């Protein structure tokens, strides 16, 4: 019975007994068990990734009023495996003049930057890779490695499109990292900890209710960080063909592609952890760890679905508009939100829970509303300036 309550510990103890029985010292055995656990987790993630290929293709087809893969197996379920086999037996070309070492490392780093994120994802109260007390910053650190992999891939391909695509992508990624860092501060302030496990434990009220604006900014910044539409200007098919991964083929391209899908799913998971209570849902997580895993995967999938919805509905934004949107609107808004959240948190802590909740929620709405009003009046003035100029020109 205890296995169903705490499967990780039971399995680890069982393995520890076996390994020490072979005469292995305890720390070495612990590390070996950790290695096996990580290997199993990441293998499951890779299988999940294959599933995501099918989900993505099926969902995009539905959004575009098509059927999507439907030939191989029921509902085209075998399609992603066929894709994998195709990637496996495809010739792996390297462009002439490419920087071979950097060129080959880049796709691996790209995949790795996604996989290491799962070290801080708590799947259930007792199932967590590592409980780091800087968990939230770890997300950004992993993102930094992803940024690096893009610039490496773009530079080493010896292709103008790839380099320009990489530059654009990196400019967007680093720009939107600032609002993302800023919104990560909000769960940190509310929970009083940077650890992802602690943030979930202290989330008796979903933080999306305390900070709806923060959740929204985080989602926007996450989509930009992922480089998906409407922020996928590196891919700009009409100008750059495919951006930084244009010269990659076969499995190396597959790594970039699979990494992007898993990254989107992972950020859905982080959205759930930071703002939607992670594995917690109506006390289900107390019943069984397996239910908790189901809850967090379901929430992550909802986030992923939302990201897909945005991707296949909106148009691509031009780079100057995107950067202006970030630096002139999102970043000041995010910093205002931190100031307001910190002030309200300090002023309202100690007051009844309903007052705290109402104060937080209303202040967020107020900030969002006034930001929209300022933006609206600014754009009206800009429009009038342009219209006035036109009127003068016509008058001449």
């Amino acid at each position, binding site marked *: 019975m205890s296995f169903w309550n705490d499967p990780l510990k039971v399995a680890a103890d069982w393995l520890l007994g076996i390994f020490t029985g072979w005469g292995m010292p305890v720390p070495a055995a612990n590390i070996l068990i950790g290695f096996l656990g990580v290997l199993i987790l990441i293998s499951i993630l890779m299988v999940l990734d294959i599933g995501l290929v099918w989900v993505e293709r099926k969902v995009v087809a539905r959004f575009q009023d098509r059927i999507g893969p439907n030939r191989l197996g029921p509902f085209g379920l075998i399609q992603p495996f066929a894709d994998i086999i195709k990637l496996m037996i495809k010739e792996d070309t390297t462009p002439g003049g490419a920087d071979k070492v950097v060129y080959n490392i880049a796709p691996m780093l790209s995949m790795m930057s996604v996989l290491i994120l799962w070290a801080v994802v708590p799947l259930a109260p007792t199932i967590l890779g590592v409980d780091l007390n*800087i968990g939230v910053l770890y997300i950004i650190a992993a993102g930094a490695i992803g940024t690096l992999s893009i610039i490496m891939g773009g530079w080493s391909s010896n292709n103008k499109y790839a380099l320009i695509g990489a530059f654009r992508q990196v400019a967007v990624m680093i*720009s939107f990292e600032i609002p993302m860092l800023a919104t990560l501060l909000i769960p940190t302030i509310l929970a009083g900890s940077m650890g992802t496990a602690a943030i979930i434990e202290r989330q008796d009220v979903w933080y999306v209710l305390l900070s709806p604006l923060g959740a929204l900014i985080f989602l926007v910044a996450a989509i930009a960080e992922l480089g998906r539409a409407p922020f996928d200007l590196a891919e700009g098919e009409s100008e750059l063909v495919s951006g930084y991964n244009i010269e990659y083929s076969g*499995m190396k391209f597959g790594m970039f592609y699979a990494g992007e899908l898993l990254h989107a799913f992972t950020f859905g998971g982080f959205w759930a952890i930071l703002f939607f209570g992670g594995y917690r849902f109506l006390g289900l997580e107390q019943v069984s760890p397996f239910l908790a895993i189901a809850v967090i995967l379901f929430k992550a999938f909802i986030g992923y679905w939302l990201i897909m919805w945005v991707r296949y509905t909106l148009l691509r934004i031009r780079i100057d508009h995107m950067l202006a949107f970030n630096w002139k609107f999102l970043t000041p808004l995010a910093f205002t939100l931190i100031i307001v959240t*910190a002030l309200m*948190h300090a002023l309202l802590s100690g007051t009844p829970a309903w007052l705290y909740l109402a104060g937080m929620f209303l202040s967020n709405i107020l900030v969002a509303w006034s930001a929209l009003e300022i933006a609206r009046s600014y754009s009206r003035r800009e429009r009038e300036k342009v219209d006035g100029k036109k009127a003068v020109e016509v008058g001449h």
Partner: protein
Amino acid sequence: MNPWVFVGLFFLVGLIIPLGAIGVAWILGPKKPNPIKQTTYECGIETVGDSWVQFKAQYYIFALVFLIFDVETVFLFPWAVKLGALGLFAVIEGIIFILILVAGLVYTWRKGMLEWA
């Protein structure tokens, strides 16, 4: 034990799995390179010069602004962790910190450095 050992394991496995996938593909796939196949793909047009074209200085400006904001925002994290226990005084210090930061943003904005053109 140091918790980073397990983070290290994630890095290790995170490298091994893509390496394995690419390695299997390398073993299975055909290897018949030829000069045409290895030309740079630029929509069928012959490549002129190398890929090192002149870039807009604007990329550098955004990276510069990003660097400063990145460092400053990262500094706010220890403050945010301890915020609940420290009270209003610490909150005001943090707000001053953010306002100094925003002053830098306002300066860059007014100088017209955030324009792409």
